Protein backbone atom coordinates (compact mmCIF):
# COMPACT_ATOMS: atom_id res chain seq x y z
CA UNK A 1 0.00 0.00 0.00
CA UNK A 2 2.69 2.48 1.02
CA UNK A 3 4.72 1.69 -2.06
CA UNK A 4 1.60 1.81 -4.23
CA UNK A 5 0.45 5.21 -3.07
CA UNK A 6 3.08 7.38 -4.78
CA UNK A 7 2.63 5.33 -7.95
CA UNK A 8 -1.13 5.97 -7.94
CA UNK A 9 -0.51 9.64 -7.27
CA UNK A 10 1.83 9.90 -10.27
CA UNK A 11 -0.56 7.96 -12.46
CA UNK A 12 -3.59 10.09 -11.54
CA UNK A 13 -1.57 13.27 -12.08
CA UNK A 14 -0.63 12.01 -15.51
CA UNK A 15 -4.24 11.11 -16.37
CA UNK A 16 -5.37 14.58 -15.33
CA UNK A 17 -2.50 16.55 -16.86
CA UNK A 18 -4.76 18.37 -19.35
CA UNK A 19 -7.52 19.16 -16.85
CA UNK A 20 -7.49 22.69 -15.38
CA UNK A 21 -7.32 22.77 -11.60
CA UNK A 22 -10.74 24.27 -11.35
CA UNK A 23 -13.64 23.05 -9.23
CA UNK A 24 -15.99 23.05 -12.19
CA UNK A 25 -13.75 20.46 -13.86
CA UNK A 26 -14.09 17.97 -11.00
CA UNK A 27 -16.75 15.80 -12.64
CA UNK A 28 -14.76 15.77 -15.88
CA UNK A 29 -11.66 14.75 -13.95
CA UNK A 30 -13.51 12.04 -12.06
CA UNK A 31 -14.76 10.50 -15.30
CA UNK A 32 -11.22 10.27 -16.69
CA UNK A 33 -9.94 8.67 -13.54
CA UNK A 34 -12.90 6.30 -13.25
CA UNK A 35 -12.50 5.11 -16.82
CA UNK A 36 -8.92 4.16 -15.98
CA UNK A 37 -9.43 2.45 -12.61
CA UNK A 38 -13.15 1.52 -12.71
CA UNK A 39 -13.39 2.45 -9.04
CA UNK A 40 -12.47 5.06 -6.47
CA UNK A 41 -10.16 3.61 -3.85
CA UNK A 42 -9.11 6.04 -1.07
CA UNK A 43 -5.64 6.58 -2.57
CA UNK A 44 -7.25 7.46 -5.92
CA UNK A 45 -9.61 9.96 -4.30
CA UNK A 46 -6.63 11.37 -2.42
CA UNK A 47 -4.67 11.82 -5.63
CA UNK A 48 -7.59 13.60 -7.31
CA UNK A 49 -7.94 15.78 -4.23
CA UNK A 50 -4.24 16.70 -4.35
CA UNK A 51 -4.22 17.38 -8.07
CA UNK A 52 -7.45 19.43 -8.12
CA UNK A 53 -6.63 21.18 -4.85
CA UNK A 54 -10.03 20.27 -3.43
CA UNK A 55 -10.45 18.74 0.05
CA UNK A 56 -10.56 14.94 0.14
CA UNK A 57 -13.97 14.97 1.83
CA UNK A 58 -15.45 17.06 -0.97
CA UNK A 59 -14.03 14.85 -3.70
CA UNK A 60 -15.27 11.79 -1.84
CA UNK A 61 -18.66 13.49 -1.45
CA UNK A 62 -18.96 13.95 -5.20
CA UNK A 63 -17.74 10.47 -6.15
CA UNK A 64 -20.15 8.87 -3.70
CA UNK A 65 -23.08 10.89 -5.04
CA UNK A 66 -23.18 9.31 -8.49
CA UNK A 67 -24.40 5.79 -9.10
CA UNK A 68 -22.11 5.12 -12.08
CA UNK A 69 -19.07 5.80 -9.87
CA UNK A 70 -20.20 3.29 -7.25
CA UNK A 71 -18.21 0.21 -8.16
CA UNK A 72 -16.33 -1.01 -5.09
CA UNK A 73 -15.10 -4.30 -6.56
CA UNK A 74 -13.59 -2.58 -9.61
CA UNK A 75 -15.02 -5.10 -12.07
CA UNK A 76 -16.43 -3.88 -15.38
CA UNK A 77 -19.99 -2.88 -14.57
CA UNK A 78 -22.79 -4.23 -16.72
CA UNK A 79 -25.85 -2.14 -15.93
CA UNK A 80 -29.15 -3.84 -16.63
CA UNK A 81 -32.32 -1.79 -16.40
CA UNK A 82 -34.88 -3.42 -14.12
CA UNK A 83 -37.27 -0.49 -14.04
CA UNK A 84 -40.95 -0.77 -14.92
CA UNK A 85 -40.81 -1.07 -18.71
CA UNK A 86 -37.80 -3.39 -18.81
CA UNK A 87 -39.23 -5.48 -15.97
CA UNK A 88 -42.37 -6.04 -18.09
CA UNK A 89 -40.07 -7.44 -20.78
CA UNK A 90 -38.29 -9.93 -18.56
CA UNK A 91 -35.41 -7.88 -17.15
CA UNK A 92 -35.42 -9.74 -13.83
CA UNK A 93 -34.94 -13.04 -15.63
CA UNK A 94 -32.21 -11.49 -17.77
CA UNK A 95 -30.36 -10.32 -14.66
CA UNK A 96 -30.43 -13.85 -13.18
CA UNK A 97 -29.07 -15.36 -16.38
CA UNK A 98 -26.36 -12.74 -16.65
CA UNK A 99 -25.34 -13.20 -13.04
CA UNK A 100 -24.89 -16.90 -13.65
CA UNK A 101 -22.93 -16.24 -16.84
CA UNK A 102 -20.58 -13.68 -15.35
CA UNK A 103 -19.95 -15.37 -12.01
CA UNK A 104 -16.22 -15.88 -12.43
CA UNK A 105 -15.56 -13.11 -14.92
CA UNK A 106 -14.29 -9.56 -14.79
CA UNK A 107 -17.83 -8.30 -15.32
CA UNK A 108 -20.24 -7.40 -12.55
CA UNK A 109 -24.00 -7.25 -13.19
CA UNK A 110 -25.76 -4.28 -11.63
CA UNK A 111 -29.47 -3.49 -11.67
CA UNK A 112 -30.09 0.10 -12.63
CA UNK A 113 -32.97 2.56 -13.08
CA UNK A 114 -34.48 3.51 -16.44
CA UNK A 115 -31.85 3.79 -19.21
CA UNK A 116 -34.19 5.65 -21.57
CA UNK A 117 -34.45 2.72 -24.00
CA UNK A 118 -38.00 1.67 -23.12
CA UNK A 119 -38.98 1.26 -26.78
CA UNK A 120 -36.48 -1.59 -27.03
CA UNK A 121 -36.73 -3.18 -23.58
CA UNK A 122 -34.97 -4.80 -21.90
CA UNK A 123 -31.93 -2.56 -22.06
CA UNK A 124 -28.39 -2.73 -20.74
CA UNK A 125 -25.37 -0.47 -20.63
CA UNK A 126 -21.77 -1.64 -20.76
CA UNK A 127 -18.74 0.61 -21.11
CA UNK A 128 -19.73 3.06 -23.80
CA UNK A 129 -22.30 0.78 -25.38
CA UNK A 130 -26.05 0.82 -25.00
CA UNK A 131 -27.64 -2.56 -25.66
CA UNK A 132 -31.25 -2.56 -26.80
CA UNK A 133 -33.51 -5.63 -26.78
CA UNK A 134 -30.77 -7.17 -24.70
CA UNK A 135 -30.32 -10.93 -24.56
CA UNK A 136 -27.54 -12.91 -22.88
CA UNK A 137 -26.05 -13.58 -26.35
CA UNK A 138 -26.10 -9.94 -27.40
CA UNK A 139 -24.53 -8.88 -24.13
CA UNK A 140 -21.85 -11.58 -24.33
CA UNK A 141 -20.96 -10.31 -27.80
CA UNK A 142 -20.72 -6.75 -26.55
CA UNK A 143 -18.51 -7.76 -23.67
CA UNK A 144 -16.16 -9.66 -25.98
CA UNK A 145 -16.08 -6.69 -28.35
CA UNK A 146 -15.27 -4.32 -25.53
CA UNK A 147 -12.46 -6.56 -24.31
CA UNK A 148 -10.89 -6.69 -27.77
CA UNK A 149 -11.18 -2.94 -28.27
Amino acid at each position, binding site marked *: MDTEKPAVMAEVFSILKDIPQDRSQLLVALWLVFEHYQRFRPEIVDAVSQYMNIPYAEVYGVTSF*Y*ALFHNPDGKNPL*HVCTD*VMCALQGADDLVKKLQALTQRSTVCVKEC*PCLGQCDAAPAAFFGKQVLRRATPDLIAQAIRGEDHA
Partner: protein
Amino acid sequence: MREVRRLLPPLDIISAPTSMQRLKDRGFSRAMERVLGMDPRDIIAEVKASGIKGRGGAAFPTGFKWESVYEAPGGNRYVVMNADESELGTFKDRALLEYDPLGPLVGMLIAAHAVGAKKAYCYIRGEYRPIERQMVNALQTLADCGWVGPHAVEVEVRRGAGAYIAGEETALLNSIEGKRAEPRVKPPFPTSKGLWGDPTLIQNVETLANVTLLFAHDVEWFRQCGSPQTPGTKLVSLSGHVKNPGVYEVPFGFPMADIIADPELGGGITGSGRLRAILLGGAAGTFLSPDQISATVLDYGSLGTFDASIGSGAIMVFDDSVDLSWVLRKLAHFFADESCGQCVPCRIGTRRIVEMLAQGGLYSRVQDLRDLAQAMRDASICGLGQTAPTALLSILDRPNWQGA
Protein backbone atom coordinates in the same frame (compact mmCIF):
# COMPACT_ATOMS: atom_id res chain seq x y z
CA MET B 1 -54.69 13.68 -38.40
CA ARG B 2 -51.57 11.58 -38.00
CA GLU B 3 -48.03 12.22 -36.90
CA VAL B 4 -46.66 15.65 -37.81
CA ARG B 5 -42.91 15.67 -38.32
CA ARG B 6 -41.48 19.07 -37.51
CA LEU B 7 -39.05 18.41 -34.66
CA LEU B 8 -38.25 15.02 -36.13
CA PRO B 9 -36.68 15.17 -39.59
CA PRO B 10 -38.61 13.88 -42.60
CA LEU B 11 -38.29 10.13 -43.06
CA ASP B 12 -36.77 10.50 -46.53
CA ILE B 13 -34.00 12.93 -45.54
CA ILE B 14 -30.64 11.86 -46.93
CA SER B 15 -28.10 14.20 -45.31
CA ALA B 16 -26.18 12.92 -42.28
CA PRO B 17 -27.61 14.17 -38.95
CA THR B 18 -24.47 16.10 -37.99
CA SER B 19 -23.55 17.41 -41.45
CA MET B 20 -23.41 20.93 -42.84
CA GLN B 21 -25.90 19.80 -45.47
CA ARG B 22 -28.37 18.87 -42.71
CA LEU B 23 -28.15 22.42 -41.36
CA LYS B 24 -29.27 23.67 -44.77
CA ASP B 25 -31.85 20.93 -45.45
CA ARG B 26 -33.64 21.60 -42.20
CA GLY B 27 -33.49 25.40 -42.37
CA PHE B 28 -31.31 25.56 -39.24
CA SER B 29 -28.63 27.70 -40.88
CA ARG B 30 -31.38 30.05 -42.08
CA ALA B 31 -32.65 30.26 -38.49
CA MET B 32 -29.18 31.04 -37.12
CA GLU B 33 -28.43 33.65 -39.74
CA ARG B 34 -31.76 35.34 -39.16
CA VAL B 35 -31.18 35.48 -35.41
CA LEU B 36 -27.64 36.86 -35.75
CA GLY B 37 -29.14 39.90 -37.48
CA MET B 38 -31.75 40.50 -34.79
CA ASP B 39 -31.80 42.56 -31.63
CA PRO B 40 -32.07 40.33 -28.50
CA ARG B 41 -35.32 42.05 -27.51
CA ASP B 42 -36.87 41.16 -30.86
CA ILE B 43 -35.76 37.55 -30.53
CA ILE B 44 -37.35 37.31 -27.10
CA ALA B 45 -40.53 38.98 -28.35
CA GLU B 46 -40.78 36.41 -31.13
CA VAL B 47 -40.32 33.50 -28.74
CA LYS B 48 -43.02 34.98 -26.51
CA ALA B 49 -45.38 35.43 -29.46
CA SER B 50 -44.85 31.82 -30.54
CA GLY B 51 -46.28 30.55 -27.26
CA ILE B 52 -43.55 27.93 -26.85
CA LYS B 53 -43.67 26.34 -23.42
CA GLY B 54 -40.88 24.34 -21.80
CA ARG B 55 -40.95 20.70 -22.87
CA GLY B 56 -39.02 19.27 -19.93
CA GLY B 57 -42.13 18.90 -17.81
CA ALA B 58 -42.92 22.21 -16.17
CA ALA B 59 -44.37 23.88 -19.31
CA PHE B 60 -43.14 27.31 -18.27
CA PRO B 61 -43.50 29.90 -21.08
CA THR B 62 -40.10 29.97 -22.75
CA GLY B 63 -40.09 33.61 -23.87
CA PHE B 64 -40.77 34.85 -20.34
CA LYS B 65 -37.89 32.78 -19.02
CA TRP B 66 -35.56 34.28 -21.62
CA GLU B 67 -36.74 37.76 -20.70
CA SER B 68 -36.00 37.11 -17.02
CA VAL B 69 -32.44 36.08 -17.83
CA TYR B 70 -31.99 38.97 -20.25
CA GLU B 71 -33.16 41.53 -17.70
CA ALA B 72 -31.40 40.04 -14.66
CA PRO B 73 -28.50 42.12 -13.39
CA GLY B 74 -25.11 40.44 -13.56
CA GLY B 75 -22.03 40.18 -15.70
CA ASN B 76 -21.66 36.68 -17.06
CA ARG B 77 -24.64 34.79 -18.38
CA TYR B 78 -24.95 31.11 -19.19
CA VAL B 79 -27.19 28.84 -21.20
CA VAL B 80 -27.56 25.18 -20.30
CA MET B 81 -29.13 22.51 -22.45
CA ASN B 82 -30.59 19.90 -20.14
CA ALA B 83 -30.11 16.54 -21.83
CA ASP B 84 -29.99 14.64 -18.54
CA GLU B 85 -33.03 12.69 -19.66
CA SER B 86 -33.61 10.19 -16.87
CA GLU B 87 -37.35 10.32 -16.31
CA LEU B 88 -38.93 6.89 -16.27
CA GLY B 89 -40.33 5.89 -19.65
CA THR B 90 -38.83 8.95 -21.36
CA PHE B 91 -36.53 8.76 -24.37
CA LYS B 92 -37.63 11.56 -26.70
CA ASP B 93 -34.54 13.74 -26.16
CA ARG B 94 -32.40 10.73 -26.96
CA ALA B 95 -34.29 10.26 -30.21
CA LEU B 96 -34.08 13.93 -31.08
CA LEU B 97 -30.33 14.09 -30.41
CA GLU B 98 -29.79 10.92 -32.40
CA TYR B 99 -31.86 11.85 -35.46
CA ASP B 100 -31.37 15.61 -35.59
CA PRO B 101 -28.88 16.93 -33.00
CA LEU B 102 -28.25 20.20 -34.83
CA GLY B 103 -31.81 21.38 -34.13
CA PRO B 104 -31.56 21.63 -30.34
CA LEU B 105 -27.94 22.78 -30.48
CA VAL B 106 -28.75 25.68 -32.81
CA GLY B 107 -31.64 26.50 -30.45
CA MET B 108 -29.11 26.69 -27.64
CA LEU B 109 -26.96 29.11 -29.64
CA ILE B 110 -30.02 31.22 -30.45
CA ALA B 111 -30.82 31.32 -26.73
CA ALA B 112 -27.25 32.35 -25.94
CA HIS B 113 -27.46 35.16 -28.46
CA ALA B 114 -30.79 36.35 -27.03
CA VAL B 115 -29.75 36.45 -23.38
CA GLY B 116 -26.16 37.55 -24.03
CA ALA B 117 -24.41 34.36 -22.93
CA LYS B 118 -20.87 33.66 -24.11
CA LYS B 119 -20.76 30.22 -22.59
CA ALA B 120 -23.12 27.28 -22.82
CA TYR B 121 -23.18 23.79 -21.35
CA CYS B 122 -24.75 20.64 -22.75
CA TYR B 123 -25.42 18.37 -19.82
CA ILE B 124 -26.06 14.80 -20.94
CA ARG B 125 -26.63 11.74 -18.80
CA GLY B 126 -23.69 9.35 -18.52
CA GLU B 127 -25.75 6.45 -19.88
CA TYR B 128 -26.19 8.15 -23.28
CA ARG B 129 -22.64 7.68 -24.53
CA PRO B 130 -23.52 7.04 -28.20
CA ILE B 131 -25.70 10.17 -28.15
CA GLU B 132 -22.93 12.17 -26.52
CA ARG B 133 -20.67 11.28 -29.46
CA GLN B 134 -23.36 12.42 -31.86
CA MET B 135 -23.63 15.70 -29.96
CA VAL B 136 -19.89 16.30 -30.02
CA ASN B 137 -19.84 15.73 -33.79
CA ALA B 138 -22.73 18.13 -34.27
CA LEU B 139 -20.93 20.77 -32.19
CA GLN B 140 -17.88 20.38 -34.43
CA THR B 141 -20.06 21.17 -37.44
CA LEU B 142 -21.33 24.29 -35.66
CA ALA B 143 -17.75 25.26 -34.82
CA ASP B 144 -16.87 24.89 -38.51
CA CYS B 145 -19.66 27.38 -39.24
CA GLY B 146 -18.07 29.81 -36.79
CA TRP B 147 -21.06 29.72 -34.43
CA VAL B 148 -19.32 27.81 -31.67
CA GLY B 149 -15.91 28.79 -30.34
CA PRO B 150 -13.99 31.44 -28.42
CA HIS B 151 -15.23 34.26 -30.65
CA ALA B 152 -18.85 33.13 -30.63
CA VAL B 153 -20.36 30.92 -27.92
CA GLU B 154 -18.10 28.49 -26.12
CA VAL B 155 -19.80 25.18 -25.52
CA GLU B 156 -18.79 22.50 -23.07
CA VAL B 157 -20.35 19.04 -22.98
CA ARG B 158 -20.84 17.73 -19.46
CA ARG B 159 -21.45 14.07 -18.79
CA GLY B 160 -23.55 13.10 -15.80
CA ALA B 161 -22.66 10.00 -13.84
CA GLY B 162 -25.92 8.33 -12.94
CA ALA B 163 -28.15 10.55 -10.85
CA TYR B 164 -31.81 11.10 -11.71
CA ILE B 165 -31.87 14.18 -9.50
CA ALA B 166 -29.18 15.89 -11.60
CA GLY B 167 -31.91 16.62 -14.14
CA GLU B 168 -33.53 19.00 -11.64
CA GLU B 169 -32.32 22.37 -12.81
CA THR B 170 -30.58 23.60 -9.68
CA ALA B 171 -29.06 20.17 -8.99
CA LEU B 172 -27.76 20.25 -12.53
CA LEU B 173 -26.08 23.60 -11.83
CA ASN B 174 -24.36 22.16 -8.78
CA SER B 175 -23.24 19.19 -10.85
CA ILE B 176 -21.69 21.49 -13.47
CA GLU B 177 -19.97 23.44 -10.70
CA GLY B 178 -18.31 20.21 -9.54
CA LYS B 179 -20.44 19.74 -6.45
CA ARG B 180 -22.83 17.02 -5.33
CA ALA B 181 -25.92 17.28 -7.53
CA GLU B 182 -28.20 18.37 -4.71
CA PRO B 183 -31.01 20.80 -5.55
CA ARG B 184 -30.87 24.36 -4.27
CA VAL B 185 -33.66 26.05 -2.37
CA LYS B 186 -35.62 28.41 -4.63
CA PRO B 187 -35.84 31.38 -4.85
CA PRO B 188 -33.51 32.69 -6.11
CA PHE B 189 -34.27 31.03 -9.43
CA PRO B 190 -31.51 30.19 -11.89
CA THR B 191 -32.76 32.94 -14.20
CA SER B 192 -31.30 35.47 -11.73
CA LYS B 193 -28.79 33.37 -9.77
CA GLY B 194 -27.69 30.23 -11.57
CA LEU B 195 -24.18 29.05 -12.38
CA TRP B 196 -21.72 30.73 -10.00
CA GLY B 197 -24.50 33.11 -8.97
CA ASP B 198 -24.96 34.53 -12.46
CA PRO B 199 -28.15 34.60 -14.55
CA THR B 200 -28.56 31.22 -16.24
CA LEU B 201 -31.04 29.93 -18.77
CA ILE B 202 -31.74 26.19 -18.54
CA GLN B 203 -33.83 24.57 -21.24
CA ASN B 204 -34.79 21.10 -22.22
CA VAL B 205 -33.49 19.65 -25.50
CA GLU B 206 -36.94 19.57 -27.11
CA THR B 207 -37.71 23.17 -26.13
CA LEU B 208 -34.56 24.37 -27.87
CA ALA B 209 -35.39 22.34 -30.98
CA ASN B 210 -38.73 24.18 -31.09
CA VAL B 211 -36.92 27.51 -30.91
CA THR B 212 -34.82 26.63 -33.96
CA LEU B 213 -37.92 25.63 -35.92
CA LEU B 214 -39.58 28.90 -34.98
CA PHE B 215 -36.69 30.96 -36.35
CA ALA B 216 -36.36 28.76 -39.42
CA HIS B 217 -39.94 29.86 -40.11
CA ASP B 218 -42.06 32.40 -38.24
CA VAL B 219 -44.66 32.74 -35.53
CA GLU B 220 -47.55 32.18 -37.89
CA TRP B 221 -46.06 28.94 -39.20
CA PHE B 222 -45.24 27.78 -35.71
CA ARG B 223 -48.78 28.31 -34.44
CA GLN B 224 -50.37 26.44 -37.34
CA CYS B 225 -49.94 23.27 -35.33
CA GLY B 226 -51.23 22.54 -31.87
CA SER B 227 -53.87 24.30 -29.81
CA PRO B 228 -54.25 28.06 -29.28
CA GLN B 229 -53.21 27.60 -25.61
CA THR B 230 -50.27 25.35 -26.46
CA PRO B 231 -48.99 25.89 -29.99
CA GLY B 232 -46.69 23.42 -31.66
CA THR B 233 -46.06 19.72 -31.46
CA LYS B 234 -44.99 17.39 -28.68
CA LEU B 235 -42.71 14.40 -28.74
CA VAL B 236 -44.16 11.51 -26.81
CA SER B 237 -42.26 8.43 -25.67
CA LEU B 238 -44.60 5.49 -26.04
CA SER B 239 -43.67 2.23 -24.34
CA GLY B 240 -45.09 -0.88 -22.72
CA HIS B 241 -47.96 -2.91 -24.08
CA VAL B 242 -48.33 -1.25 -27.48
CA LYS B 243 -47.61 -2.70 -30.88
CA ASN B 244 -45.20 0.04 -31.97
CA PRO B 245 -43.34 1.54 -29.03
CA GLY B 246 -41.24 4.56 -29.96
CA VAL B 247 -41.04 8.34 -30.17
CA TYR B 248 -43.85 10.10 -32.02
CA GLU B 249 -44.50 13.73 -32.75
CA VAL B 250 -48.09 14.88 -32.51
CA PRO B 251 -49.68 18.33 -32.30
CA PHE B 252 -50.96 19.50 -28.94
CA GLY B 253 -54.66 18.74 -28.76
CA PHE B 254 -54.20 15.28 -30.31
CA PRO B 255 -56.59 12.65 -28.87
CA MET B 256 -54.81 10.58 -26.21
CA ALA B 257 -56.57 7.39 -27.31
CA ASP B 258 -55.32 7.80 -30.90
CA ILE B 259 -51.69 8.00 -29.81
CA ILE B 260 -52.07 4.49 -28.45
CA ALA B 261 -54.43 2.99 -31.01
CA ASP B 262 -53.69 4.63 -34.37
CA PRO B 263 -52.05 2.12 -36.73
CA GLU B 264 -49.41 4.71 -37.69
CA LEU B 265 -48.66 5.48 -34.05
CA GLY B 266 -48.93 3.03 -31.15
CA GLY B 267 -50.84 0.53 -33.24
CA GLY B 268 -53.02 -0.75 -30.40
CA ILE B 269 -52.62 -2.75 -27.24
CA THR B 270 -50.49 -5.89 -27.14
CA GLY B 271 -50.14 -8.34 -24.26
CA SER B 272 -53.67 -9.34 -23.29
CA GLY B 273 -55.05 -6.85 -25.81
CA ARG B 274 -57.06 -5.10 -23.10
CA LEU B 275 -55.89 -1.76 -21.75
CA ARG B 276 -55.75 -1.31 -18.00
CA ALA B 277 -54.12 2.11 -17.69
CA ILE B 278 -51.42 4.41 -18.87
CA LEU B 279 -48.91 6.19 -16.67
CA LEU B 280 -48.53 9.63 -18.19
CA GLY B 281 -45.54 11.91 -17.59
CA GLY B 282 -43.01 9.63 -15.94
CA ALA B 283 -42.42 8.27 -12.45
CA ALA B 284 -44.10 11.31 -10.92
CA GLY B 285 -46.89 11.10 -13.47
CA THR B 286 -50.54 10.25 -13.26
CA PHE B 287 -52.35 7.01 -14.04
CA LEU B 288 -55.22 7.39 -16.47
CA SER B 289 -57.93 4.78 -16.87
CA PRO B 290 -59.26 3.75 -20.31
CA ASP B 291 -62.31 6.02 -19.81
CA GLN B 292 -60.12 8.98 -18.99
CA ILE B 293 -57.84 8.28 -21.93
CA SER B 294 -60.86 8.33 -24.25
CA ALA B 295 -62.02 11.63 -22.75
CA THR B 296 -58.78 13.59 -23.07
CA VAL B 297 -56.50 15.17 -25.62
CA LEU B 298 -52.79 15.87 -25.29
CA ASP B 299 -53.00 19.35 -23.78
CA TYR B 300 -52.61 20.82 -20.33
CA GLY B 301 -56.20 22.00 -19.93
CA SER B 302 -57.81 18.75 -21.00
CA LEU B 303 -55.52 16.56 -18.91
CA GLY B 304 -55.86 18.96 -15.99
CA THR B 305 -59.50 17.89 -15.59
CA PHE B 306 -58.11 14.60 -14.27
CA ASP B 307 -55.25 16.27 -12.36
CA ALA B 308 -52.88 14.87 -14.96
CA SER B 309 -50.13 16.60 -16.89
CA ILE B 310 -48.00 15.80 -19.88
CA GLY B 311 -44.79 15.92 -17.86
CA SER B 312 -41.92 14.68 -19.98
CA GLY B 313 -44.28 13.21 -22.56
CA ALA B 314 -43.81 9.64 -21.35
CA ILE B 315 -46.76 7.36 -22.02
CA MET B 316 -46.31 3.97 -20.38
CA VAL B 317 -49.02 1.56 -21.42
CA PHE B 318 -50.18 -1.35 -19.26
CA ASP B 319 -52.49 -4.17 -20.30
CA ASP B 320 -54.89 -5.70 -17.78
CA SER B 321 -52.43 -8.38 -16.70
CA VAL B 322 -50.36 -5.70 -14.94
CA ASP B 323 -50.97 -5.21 -11.25
CA LEU B 324 -50.76 -1.45 -10.74
CA SER B 325 -49.73 -2.00 -7.11
CA TRP B 326 -46.62 -3.66 -8.48
CA VAL B 327 -45.96 -0.57 -10.62
CA LEU B 328 -46.44 1.65 -7.56
CA ARG B 329 -43.97 -0.42 -5.56
CA LYS B 330 -41.45 -0.11 -8.40
CA LEU B 331 -41.95 3.66 -8.50
CA ALA B 332 -41.60 3.89 -4.73
CA HIS B 333 -38.27 2.06 -4.89
CA PHE B 334 -37.14 4.30 -7.72
CA PHE B 335 -37.78 7.47 -5.70
CA ALA B 336 -36.27 6.06 -2.52
CA ASP B 337 -33.11 5.15 -4.46
CA GLU B 338 -32.93 8.44 -6.32
CA SER B 339 -33.76 10.81 -3.46
CA CYS B 340 -30.55 12.75 -2.87
CA GLY B 341 -31.14 12.65 0.88
CA GLN B 342 -30.57 16.34 1.41
CA CYS B 343 -33.99 17.14 2.90
CA VAL B 344 -35.86 15.09 5.47
CA PRO B 345 -39.38 14.95 3.97
CA CYS B 346 -38.05 13.37 0.80
CA ARG B 347 -35.32 11.21 2.30
CA ILE B 348 -37.59 9.71 4.95
CA GLY B 349 -40.86 10.05 3.05
CA THR B 350 -39.78 8.06 0.01
CA ARG B 351 -38.56 5.27 2.35
CA ARG B 352 -41.81 5.25 4.33
CA ILE B 353 -43.83 4.86 1.14
CA VAL B 354 -41.76 1.81 0.19
CA GLU B 355 -42.35 0.33 3.65
CA MET B 356 -46.08 1.05 3.75
CA LEU B 357 -46.63 -0.49 0.32
CA ALA B 358 -44.53 -3.53 1.26
CA GLN B 359 -46.26 -4.10 4.60
CA GLY B 360 -49.94 -3.91 3.96
CA GLY B 361 -50.54 -3.03 0.34
CA LEU B 362 -51.94 0.14 -1.09
CA TYR B 363 -55.20 0.40 0.81
CA SER B 364 -54.12 -0.64 4.31
CA ARG B 365 -53.00 2.81 5.45
CA VAL B 366 -54.65 5.23 3.07
CA GLN B 367 -54.87 8.17 5.47
CA ASP B 368 -51.24 7.75 6.56
CA LEU B 369 -50.15 7.71 2.93
CA ARG B 370 -52.17 10.85 2.22
CA ASP B 371 -50.75 12.68 5.25
CA LEU B 372 -47.23 11.66 4.29
CA ALA B 373 -47.80 12.77 0.70
CA GLN B 374 -49.03 16.15 1.91
CA ALA B 375 -45.97 16.62 4.12
CA MET B 376 -43.68 15.72 1.21
CA ARG B 377 -45.46 18.12 -1.11
CA ASP B 378 -45.34 20.94 1.41
CA ALA B 379 -41.84 20.56 2.73
CA SER B 380 -39.52 18.92 0.18
CA ILE B 381 -36.91 21.17 -1.38
CA CYS B 382 -37.41 20.07 -4.96
CA GLY B 383 -39.82 18.46 -7.36
CA LEU B 384 -38.60 14.93 -6.65
CA GLY B 385 -39.91 14.84 -3.10
CA GLN B 386 -42.88 17.05 -3.90
CA THR B 387 -44.15 14.81 -6.67
CA ALA B 388 -42.92 11.36 -5.60
CA PRO B 389 -46.42 10.44 -4.28
CA THR B 390 -48.32 11.79 -7.33
CA ALA B 391 -48.83 8.49 -9.17
CA LEU B 392 -49.87 6.80 -5.95
CA LEU B 393 -52.40 9.51 -5.17
CA SER B 394 -53.85 9.25 -8.66
CA ILE B 395 -54.80 5.66 -7.83
CA LEU B 396 -56.00 6.41 -4.29
CA ASP B 397 -58.22 9.17 -5.65
CA ARG B 398 -60.14 6.58 -7.67
CA PRO B 399 -61.08 3.99 -5.05
CA ASN B 400 -63.36 2.03 -7.36
CA TRP B 401 -60.78 1.52 -10.03
CA GLN B 402 -60.05 -2.13 -10.66
CA GLY B 403 -56.46 -3.09 -11.02
CA ALA B 404 -54.61 -1.85 -7.97
